[in-house]
């Protein structure tokens, strides 16, 4: 499997690479797995609707890139910024004035504490997971964000990932820890500049400790020739809240793996996602909420619009373990198909082993209501603006879940840029 990279590059990682917080055993384990593992095919249940040929047939290389002007990619002007170019932190572009109560460093730094060491890779499954293993073996850099106990961050923190160059690979590895009683808002943006057929394979491990509240907004807007596989591995301790809003607006092949383990009681989990696709895009959202503890709630809402020859995949799973009683889990996926060449594959799943639960899921696929379009046109709107209005009303449900105004404005800006609302 290592043919994805040149052998000299592998040597480079092994000798010049870091150990940092990522223990050497884990890297070794990942290398061992990579020796035998193959890319999953559509016969693998988790990859049933996503063909990986575009990624597996290419050779990627690690490149150090540079970007002079990042103003276009700054999501929030009023936030602490960390810029990662091709998966490597660019300190010259990043904020230096981080507030008290936040430790921000690189995973290759040796400032790591015992705690961080024990958290990295804790929940990340390597066996049979080629992209996780690839990331663990080859991660060059990535940021660690530790929100200390009782810290309430007024400003947001934004991680801006920029991919540049041709056939570049970025194995960025992030770790976010929200300690007890803390509260924070983090933004992850994925962009590309002059990148063609490059590949981001990102892993973000997130730990939300007792009474902590963490919100993550994830904006994906890489070039439509770029590929992305991105994993968020989340663990929630008791009384915590975790919210993630995933907005996917560009990228040739995007796969999001969102794995949330709720191990403490009285937790609340919110997962929202919006995807608007055109051209030949393929976006695959996999979510898994694993309710291990009782008295928790999870709400999931994914909405998408697909046009042209694009494909959207949604696979949401709610898992309620034995003895995890009093769980309320709700899952909803709605899709609008605008073209006969577009495809929707939706697979909402419930797997429940406890009896005192309220779980439901719903999935719909349809098109714009022609009568409503007519209604609007009868009132003087052009057909184009009528449809625009209806699509924006449909997708607004999700966009409005974003609480941060600046992020919301930025998303609307991207929609304008990519679609001019002409869907």
């Amino acid at each position: 499997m290592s043919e994805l990279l040149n052998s000299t590059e592998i040597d480079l990682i092994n000798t010049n690479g870091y150990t940092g917080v990522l223990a050497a055993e884990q890297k070794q384990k990942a290398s061992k797995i990579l020796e035998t593992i193959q890319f999953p095919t559509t016969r693998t249940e988790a990859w049933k609707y996503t063909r990986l040929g575009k990624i597996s047939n290419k050779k990627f290389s690690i490149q150090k890139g540079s970007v002079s002007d990042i103003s276009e990619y700054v999501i929030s002007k009023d936030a602490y910024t960390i810029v990662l170019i091709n998966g490597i932190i660019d300190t010259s572009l990043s904020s230096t004035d981080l507030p008290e109560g936040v430790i921000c460093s690189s995973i290759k730094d040796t400032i790591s504490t015992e705690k961080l060491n024990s958290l990295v890779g804790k929940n990340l499954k390597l066996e049979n997971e080629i992209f996780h293993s690839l990331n663990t073996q080859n991660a060059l850099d990535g940021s660690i964000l530790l929100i200390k106990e009782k810290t309430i961050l007024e400003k947001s923190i934004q991680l801006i990932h920029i991919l540049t160059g041709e056939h570049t690979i970025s194995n960025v590895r992030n770790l976010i820890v929200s300690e007890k009683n803390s509260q924070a808002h983090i933004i992850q943006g994925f962009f590309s500049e002059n990148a063609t057929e490059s590949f981001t394979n990102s892993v973000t491990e997130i730990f939300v400790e007792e009474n902590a509240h963490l919100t993550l907004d994830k904006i994906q807007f890489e070039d439509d020739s770029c590929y992305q596989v991105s994993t968020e591995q989340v663990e929630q301790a008791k009384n915590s809240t975790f919210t993630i809003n995933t907005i996917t607006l560009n990228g040739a092949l995007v796969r999001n793996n969102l794995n949330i383990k709720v191990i403490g009681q009285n937790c609340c989990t919110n997962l929202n996602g919006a995807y608007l696709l055109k051209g030949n895009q393929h976006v695959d959202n996999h979510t898994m909420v694993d309710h291990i503890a009782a008295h928790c709630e999870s709400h999931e809402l994914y909405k998408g619009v697909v046009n042209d020859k694009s494909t959207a995949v949604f696979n949401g799973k709610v898992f309620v373990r034995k003895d995890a009683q009093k769980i309320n889990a709700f899952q909803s996926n709605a899709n609008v198909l605008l073209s006969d060449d577009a495809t929707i594959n939706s697979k909402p799943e419930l797997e429940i082993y406890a009896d005192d639960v309220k779980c439901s899921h719903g999935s719909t696929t349809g098109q714009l209501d022609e009568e409503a379009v007519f209604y609007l046109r009868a009132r003087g709107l052009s057909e184009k603006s009528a449809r625009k209005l209806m699509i924006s009303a449909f997708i607004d449900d999700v966009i409005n879940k974003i609480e941060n105004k600046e992020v919301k404005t930025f998303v609307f800006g991207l929609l304008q840029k990519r679609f001019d609302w002409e869907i």
Partner: protein
Amino acid sequence: MSYTENDLAEDLQNQEYKYGFVSNLESEKIPKGLSEDIIRLISAKKEEPQWLLDYRLKAYAIWLEMTEPEWAHVQYAKPDFQDIIYYSAVKQKKYESWDDVEPEMKETMKKLGISMDEQKVLTGTNVAVDFVMDSVSVATSFKSKLSELGIIFCSFSEGVKNHPELIKKYMGSVVPTTDNFYAALNSAVFTDGSFCYIPKGVRCPMELSTYFRINEQGTGQFERTLVVADQGSYVSYLEGCTAPMRDENQLHAAVVELIAMDDAEIKYSTVQNWYPGDKDGKGGIFNFVTKRGICEKNAKISWTQVETGSAVTWKYPSCILKGDNSVGEFYSVAVTNHHQQADTGTKMIHLGKNTKSTIISKGVSGGKSNNSYRGLVQIHKGATNARNFSQCDSLLMSDECGAHTFPYIECKNSSAKIEHEATTSKIGEDQIFYCQQRGISSEKAISLIVNGYCKEVLNQLPMEFAVEAQKLLAISLDNSVG
């Protein structure tokens, strides 16, 4: 002597599975195991034509290449295919009339509640029955009356003998031998089953029914049902199954093919009550069935199933909506208790324009059982204005059971509308309290609530079956609530 508590306890024990008896009938069996020779032997015993033997051998060759599927959400010890008797026939003379039937056989049918006696039919609804015990069809009633209308209703073997052109044309056209592991196995070793042909424009005046019974030990049942409804015809078909209580797991791998031509309608109802195994999950039938129907223009296929038996169920009655304006329906109640496992659902393949499908699935799980719904709704590119509505509800009766939903929704047409919804919950304490307050015991209250919950599906069943199914639900759930 009065009726004591002990008597009651005993009654309850027996009530659990009332079809668990064994009939003492002499039968002819072939040796255990599976090989080309065994297949030749089965074919020879049934005096089959060469083309059918070739069909079997071809299927066997395909089966050898296949591996057992593992994707279903069930766990079981895989059957040893060399340890199964593939052919077991009750020794019988040719029955000239009902009076010739052996008393033991009559007794069996009586116990199972099957009425073969054409004279003593209840007023009103008539049911024509084909009774299949182990590997062969024992008797078929109302044949002459049906043949007046041109309806062919007979055992599969008779079909092969008397109507080879029809069998040859339609067998395997909906479920090809290559379809899946168990369909291939069935195609190689099937022994009997029912065949039914409704001619153009005929509305079948009575319910047609097949009753499957496993009696012998160590055997598997591999039957095949083929229903062909020609243009503009209508038929309602029923299927029931039971088996004795045994410690071993017996295999039942059937294939059902339905063909509904232009404007035809087939209603296929199943009450599956194979022996589910005992409280500790010992014994029971492995029920691995492939059921599929194809709809031509304006045709309709409706599957209704009540699944209460079997240790492991693996069954997805499907509809291929090939013709424009065709309709597919699936109504299912699956009840699992103790250690039963069910992975059941449907596939609706929309190919034609304006095709519609409805899926209503109600799962009830109790004890330590696992009950999964697995369904596929596939809208192909040409299926303009296709419409699907699915609803899958699960009811949890104990804290050790599991209820799962795995729907697959694939859409490639922009004018299609698909809705899917699923809920999982337990019976509300307040509902039980309400009933108890009005003097209804909690057991009764639960049976009432469950029946109400399943009503949408039970209403689809023909009358006699609906009554039977309601009773069955009550029995299956006895003592399931702690």
